Structures are given as C-alpha cells and as structure tokens.
C-alpha cells in the first residue's frame, strides 16, 4: 500500500500563497478527509499531490524519492477525481473510462486487449456494464460520478484523490458514492484522500480528518477530536451542534443564530494572520 508524505510544502497561485509550509502524513491504505472552509487549500493540496502544481518542499508518493516520478509514472500511482470533471460531449462511458488507461498506453499506440479487459472489469465493478455504449452527457449526476470513478479506477493507481466527490448529488447518492468508494478501498487496498464539505459524512467515511485553514493544517485526528463545536466555530465561522449518533459516530448540525460561540475573526489569506476588528 502506498502512503503520501508532505514536508514543508508551500504553493502559490498567481503569486498568492495558498499552502504554507504544510506537513502531512497519510499512511498507506488509510482514508483521510480534508476539511476546511472555502479557500483553505483543499483542492490545491490534492492537485499538488497529483503533481499538477509547482511547489516548494517535498511530496513523497510511496517509496519513490520526491520529484523522481515522471508524469506517466505519477498517473499510474495517483488517480485524481476533480470536483467538476470535464464531460466531453458525445463521448461514450466506455471510451471515457478507457482514458484512464492513458498512462499505460505508449505515446502513439492504441490500447491493447488487456486495457479493454481492465476497463470492462472496472465498469462491471461499478455496475456500469450496461452503460458502456451510453453517451456521457446523457447520464444522471449519480451515474456520471460513477463513470468518473470508473476512469480513475482504470488507472489502477494505489492512491485515489477525490475532490468533493458528492458535489451536486442528493443525500441518497452522496451516501451511495461514498459507500462505493469505501468498498473499493477495501477491495483494492487503496489509499483514499477526499476533500469534503459535509462534515458529518467526512466523520463517517474517514479514519482521519485533516482540517485546513489558511493553507496550514489547523487540526488533524479522528472525527471526535477534530469535529468539536469550538473548532468548527473558529475555523468555519459557523454555529453548529455536534450530536452523538445513537448508531455510533457524530452528527454535525448547523444551528441558526446565537450558538453561544463567537466566530473567530477572519483570517487574512495573504499573511495568515487574524484580522483585528
């Protein structure tokens, strides 16, 4: 199983620092949820791990020395499901999933029988077998998300990065997608890192929560430790109740008005310092 280690990673976008001297260790086979307010650096962190952004510091994937992996080698180790994947009009689900084999197909060659078999197996695994010939733009939101997962799984990468995998899905499909990812993780021994907005779901579907704020790790640990009313109020400027779920786990519920906790002063994104009123 392949883990991820970040040491002193800093990333600037258009000259604006987004990640600051960030350290993070994701053990192989674990499931980690990245949480944090909008603009806290979740997507940037995922893209940096996927090798899509220039950065300072070290990003180590498995046992490969940092910076030693080519673009293709990286794509064989890390599959990234973006928040809003492009949906090429007219492309079929089968062709789309086949794109996941790109890092294995030589530059000007075409796919082999083995590539097609792998894609067929992945589609069957995701109950998309009957959809192979369907056009991507004719699918519902839930079906499309499974198609995107199929493309990622076709990469046969040991690390799966998901950026808000439940965006735009209803509550039932949110659960289905996350259950599916969890099943796949166990079946395929994957390391899964997901950026998530829904804190309850994050608590339910991750062993470790990593709370980002202002490009730094503000808190990390099991859900009970990170998801407290005080921490959420401070970093999200939100009033919530954290309730015990009789079935185990915790539930984060937003409440209106005086939650009794004052939100923290806003943080200046350029300096990382709190702005005084």
């Amino acid at each position, binding site marked *: 199983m392949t883990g991820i280690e970040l040491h002193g990673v800093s990333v600037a976008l258009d000259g604006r620092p987004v990640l600051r001297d960030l350290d993070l260790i994701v053990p192989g086979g674990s499931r980690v949820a990245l949480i944090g307010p909008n603009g806290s650096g979740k997507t940037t962190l995922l893209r940096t791990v996927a090798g*899509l952004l220039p950065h300072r510091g070290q990003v180590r994937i498995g046992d490969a020395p940092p910076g030693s992996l080519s*673009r293709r080698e990286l794509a064989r180790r890390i599959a990234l499901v973006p928040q809003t*994947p*492009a949906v*090429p009009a*007219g492309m079929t689900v089968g*062709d789309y999933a086949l*794109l996941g084999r790109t890092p294995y197909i030589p*530059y000007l060659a075409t796919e082999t029988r083995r590539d097609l078999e792998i*894609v067929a197996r992945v589609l069957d695994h995701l109950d998309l077998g009957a959809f192979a010939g369907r056009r991507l733009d004719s699918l519902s939101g839930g079906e499309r998300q499974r198609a995107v997962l199929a493309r990622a799984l076709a990469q046969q990468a040991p690390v799966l990065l998901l950026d808000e995998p439940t965006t735009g899905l209803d509550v039932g499909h949110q659960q289905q997608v996350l259950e599916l990812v969890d099943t796949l993780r166990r079946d395929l021994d994957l390391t899964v890192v997901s950026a998530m907005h829904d804190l309850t779901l994050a608590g339910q579907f991750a062993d470790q929560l990593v709370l980002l704020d202002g490009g730094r790790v503000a808190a990390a640990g099991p859900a009970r430790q990170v998801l407290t009313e005080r921490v959420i109020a401070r970093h999200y400027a939100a009033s919530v109740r954290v309730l015990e779920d009789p079935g185990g786990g915790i539930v984060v519920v937003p409440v209106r008005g005086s939650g009794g906790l004052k939100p923290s002063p806003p943080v200046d994104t350029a300096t990382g310092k709190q702005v005084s009123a």
Partner: protein
Amino acid sequence: MIVAPARLRAGPLLVACAGLAGAALLAVLVGPVRLDPGAVLAELAGRLPLVHTTSGLSQQEAAILWELRLPRVVLGGLVGAMLAVAGVAYQGVFRNPLADPYLLGAAAGAGLGATLAIAYGPETSGWPVDLLPLAAFAGAVGGVAAAYALGRSSGTRTATALILSGVAVAAFLTAIQTYVQQRESETLREVYGWILGRLTTAGWREVALMAPYAVVGAVVILLHRRLLDVLAVGDDEASSLGLRAARVRLVVVVAATLATAAAVAVSGLIGFVGIVVPHTVRLLVGTSHRLLAPLSLVAGAAFLILADLAARTVTAPAELPIGVVTAFVGAPFFALVLRTTRRVP
C-alpha cells in the same frame, strides 16, 4: 462484457473512399471537352505497372487529362484533405468546435505574405518555383509562430491565451496587409482574387510543392488521433492522466499549421472547408477523433474536388472563386445535415 472503443471500421472508410473516387472521376470527365469515362479509366489503368491497354483517347484528350484535369483534381483533393484534417486538429486541441485552420494567424500571415509578393515581388518567371506560394507559406507559418510566441510570453500556456494571441497577431498582420494594399492599389484585384482562393494555376509542380508538407502534416495528426480524445477532458485532467498536454498541443498545431500553410500556398484562402467538413462528419459518426480525423481527411478531399468542379463549370467559360463555392454550397448542406441528424456535436 466487452468494451468496444470508437475505432475506425472498414465500412465508413470504404464509403468515404468510394465517394472520393467518384468525385475525382466526375471532376476528370467534366469540362469544356467531355472525356469518355471508359476511355479515361483505360488510360489511367494503362499507367499502372504490368497493365497494357490502349485507351482510345486522342493525343489532345490525353494531354487534357494528364496536364490539366488530373493535377487540378489531385491538388484540389490535397488542399481539401489538409484543410479538413487541420480543422479537426485545431478543434481538438482547442476544444472548440468553431476553431478553424486559420484560427492562429495562418490566414492573416499568408495574406500578408501573398500581398507583399504580389506588390513588391521581383519578376520570377525564370525561377523554378513562384515567389507567391513561398511567401504565402512563410507568412502562414510565421503568423502561427508569432501567435505561439506571444501566447507563451503571457506566462500561462493555456489554449485561451493562445487563441487570444492569434486574434492579436491576425489583426496586426491584416492591418499591415491593408496598408500595403492601399499604397499599391493596382494590385488590389490580384490580391483579392488570391484571398478568395483558386486552383486555376494547378499543375503537377504545385502538387509536388505541397505533397511533402501534406503527407507529414496528415500523418502526424492521424497518429495523434487517440491523444486528441484524451485532450477532450482539458489540460488539467489530461495531465493527471499522464499526458503532457501542452507538448501534444504544440506538436499537433505544428503539423496542422504545415498542412494549412501548404494548402494556402497553392490555393489561396479557401474558407469553410475546415469547419463544415469536420462538423458534417462529426454529426454522422460521433465526436471521437479516431474516426473524425481519417474520415474528415477523405471527405475534405471529395468536398473540395466537387467544389472546384462547380467553380469551373457553373459559369463556364468563366470561373467562380472556389471560396465562394465552398461557402455557397457548404453552408446549406451543413444546415441540412444539422436538421436531419439528431446527434448534437
């Protein structure tokens, strides 16, 4: 379960090739002097190795076939094929169905090169190659190179930056061209005729001039047809799939530019082919570049051969500019395909 990727099957390709052969034969037969189909086929077969036939064509008819009609048909086919496949390439790398081969300043560059050659060029009757096609070719390549350099200097290597650079370069080059035209107004008619496109000067020399670039450009684009499908998900996702998106785009743009420049050099600015042919093919067989690139190549050749046939016969003995024909015939045809097909590109 079996996953069947969008691959080129023999059926559609055979249909397209049969259409091309039919168009070419028709274009060879029809003209002021009508040639007998059987005799022409026998004459053509007679040039094949190990085949010995006598066609029955007179010496004059054979000269019309070999020196006038055939080079014009071959050149028209090459130009149409290149404009169509370059259109597919540009639309693929820029993920924009409205991109055409002239997008990045190729047309404006070629226009300026041709105008300069017509206005200030020396007498070249003794030269082995005319100055005009060379100037147009250099202008087209120079225009795209300038757009690329400008796009990269902006810091971002995105497709949008490149397209905007193309717009800026095209506007600048067209301004110079207009200035030269105004100063040398006696050349206006010749420049205008060139801009509308023509195959009137077609000969084997033009075919030989264009063929190497056409072959290299087309082969490179066809080899990249699978990767054009990967680029359809955008630079970022293509990169996360292990593809160096900017590099692939550069290679494909260079190939498409060579093909376009070669076509423009021998035929002027023939519009519409690079958009209408790929779109029609897309409506018929879907959006995968694996089918789109080879089928557009063949369909583009057939389309331009027929357009040229119309250009030289409709108002005979006068000739229409071929660019007028491609737009006049192509636009309604495109509208018809759009109306009768449910698949949306």
